[in-house]
């Protein structure tokens, strides 16, 4: 591989070599080059992510905010390290520069490290957070409720992303009739904050939009920086349309999470929240329709019976006897009333039947037929998050047919 023709190049050019290099040859060649780059390096950087694998090895990503490098502490090297750093720490370290040949990337092989305090990125974020907090952007009382009736959902996430797929399929499965306006925008990279903000402004200005989901699937903390952008966060706080932040991550909140009206841990959870709102209202509507149809029939039938009974009572009979003309008039009124009632009733009941039928076909509640259940609390409010319940609460489970009450044994906060 190494040129034996007097060239300065490490790899031979095609003119000197008829057999193509394999991928492994390229990677092991680069490994050999890097080995010559320096034996032991003294490096400083901020830990943007750190993950301990089941194998005992620790994998990190380091940054100086302009650029990133992966790093690893092998299990055997950990014994010499007193404290593992946490995300946001700036560390000084002694490491070798190595190529991970199977993955085809280079990384720092850490042999020792020292904490050097909080990193720039974390300090910057903390300062920004305090400023926005002082400006009242995170005030709970400023936050808008999720509307009960939702016709159109605005969605901001990356084009062709798992996040959009999850939101789309959850909404389609649970509330097939809801309209979606998708405003795609990159969720990481230099232009992401501006593009996200443009998309958000476009949806905020669309009067058809009832609620906006903005988010992405899970990523390490460095991948979520766009959702900490000050302009984007301020724009979200200005919105008159309620916003659900759905940035998938495990540890910290993004600043957008704090400013949004509602936050969910994943894009799927945001869509589920909307589905439960819609289902709750549709269920109520369906129930009223059924009770209305029942009572309308019942009431009118009972009134007819009263009328018949009254018209055959002795008092009325006497009265009728006193005047044949009156009797005729009553009979006439009676038959006219019955005719018009029959007509009216038949027509209204037809309309109602047709509406029931159409509603049933279009009813997103059909999801209940698939074995899902609606969970209601003691005040008949739909329960969508475990934050709203505590142990020993009694809940009503509403199935497609019938219902049951249940007692909470254990609450796991979402």
């Amino acid at each position, binding site marked *: 591989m190494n040129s034996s023709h007097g060239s300065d190049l490490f790899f031979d050019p095609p003119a000197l070599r008829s057999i193509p290099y394999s991928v492994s040859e390229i990677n092991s060649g680069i490994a050999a080059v890097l080995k010559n780059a320096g034996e032991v390096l003294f490096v400083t950087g901020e830990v943007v992510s750190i993950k301990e694998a089941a194998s005992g090895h620790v994998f990190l990503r380091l940054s100086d905010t302009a650029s990133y490098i992966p790093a690893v502490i092998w299990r055997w090297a950990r014994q010499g390290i007193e404290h593992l750093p946490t995300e946001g720490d700036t560390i000084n370290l002694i490491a070798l520069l190595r190529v991970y040949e199977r993955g085809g990337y280079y990384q720092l092989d850490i042999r020792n490290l020292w904490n050097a305090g909080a990193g720039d990125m974390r300090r910057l974020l903390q300062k920004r957070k305090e400023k926005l907090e002082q400006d009242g952007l995170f005030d709970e009382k400023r936050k808008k409720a999720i*509307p*009960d*009736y939702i*016709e*159109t959902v605005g969605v901001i996430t*990356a084009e*062709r*992303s*798992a*996040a*959009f*797929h999850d939101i*789309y*399929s959850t909404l*389609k499965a649970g509330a*097939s*009739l*809801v*309209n*979606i*306006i*998708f*405003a*795609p925008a990159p969720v*990481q990279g230099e232009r992401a904050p501006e*593009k996200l903000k*443009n*998309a958000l402004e*476009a949806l905020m200005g669309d*009067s*058809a*939009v*009832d609620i906006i989901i903005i988010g*992405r*699937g*899970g*990523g390490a903390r460095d991948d979520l920086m766009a959702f900490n952008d000050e302009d984007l966060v301020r724009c979200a706080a200005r919105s*008159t*349309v309620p916003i659900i932040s759905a940035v*998938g991550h495990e540890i910290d909140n993004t600043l957008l999470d704090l400013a949004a009206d509602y936050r969910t841990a994943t894009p799927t959870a945001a869509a589920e929240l909307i589905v439960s709102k819609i289902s709750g*209202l549709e269920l109520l*509507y369906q129930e*009223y*329709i059924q*009770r*209305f149809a029942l*009572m*309308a029939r*019942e*009431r*009118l039938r009972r*009134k007819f019976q009263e009328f018949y009974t009254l018209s055959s009572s002795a008092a009325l009979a006497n009265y009728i006897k006193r005047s044949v003309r009156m009797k005729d008039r009553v009979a006439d009124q009676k038959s006219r009333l019955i005719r018009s009632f029959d007509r*009216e009733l038949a027509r*209204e009941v037809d*309309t*109602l039947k047709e*509406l029931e039928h*159409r*509603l049933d076909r*279009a009813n997103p509640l059909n999801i209940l037929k698939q074995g899902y259940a609606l969970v209601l609390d003691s005040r008949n409010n739909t329960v969508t998050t475990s934050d709203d319940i505590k142990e020993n609460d009694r809940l009503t489970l509403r199935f497609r047919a019938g219902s049951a009450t249940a007692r909470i044994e254990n609450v796991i906060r979402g």
Partner: protein
Amino acid sequence: MAEKRKRTTFEDALQQLEASVRFLETEEVSLDDSLKHFEQGIRAVEKCRRHLNRAEGKIQKLLETPAGDFIKETMNVDIEDLIGGQKDFE
């Protein structure tokens, strides 16, 4: 605000329907009142239905023009395409 009006209208109609149902379910009501509420209920149902019809499962996409404006276009979502697409949280 337009969207605010839209929301209250559906909820108003639903409340009207509820009121009619509750009225019809009370024991002592006159025939006249029954009929009045029956008609009111039917009108409320129609109002609700008009709103529900507006939600028709339409999918649209906002496209940014080079000038920075947004235009709306109908989006044909191919779910297979979505699943087959990038799943790497981009």
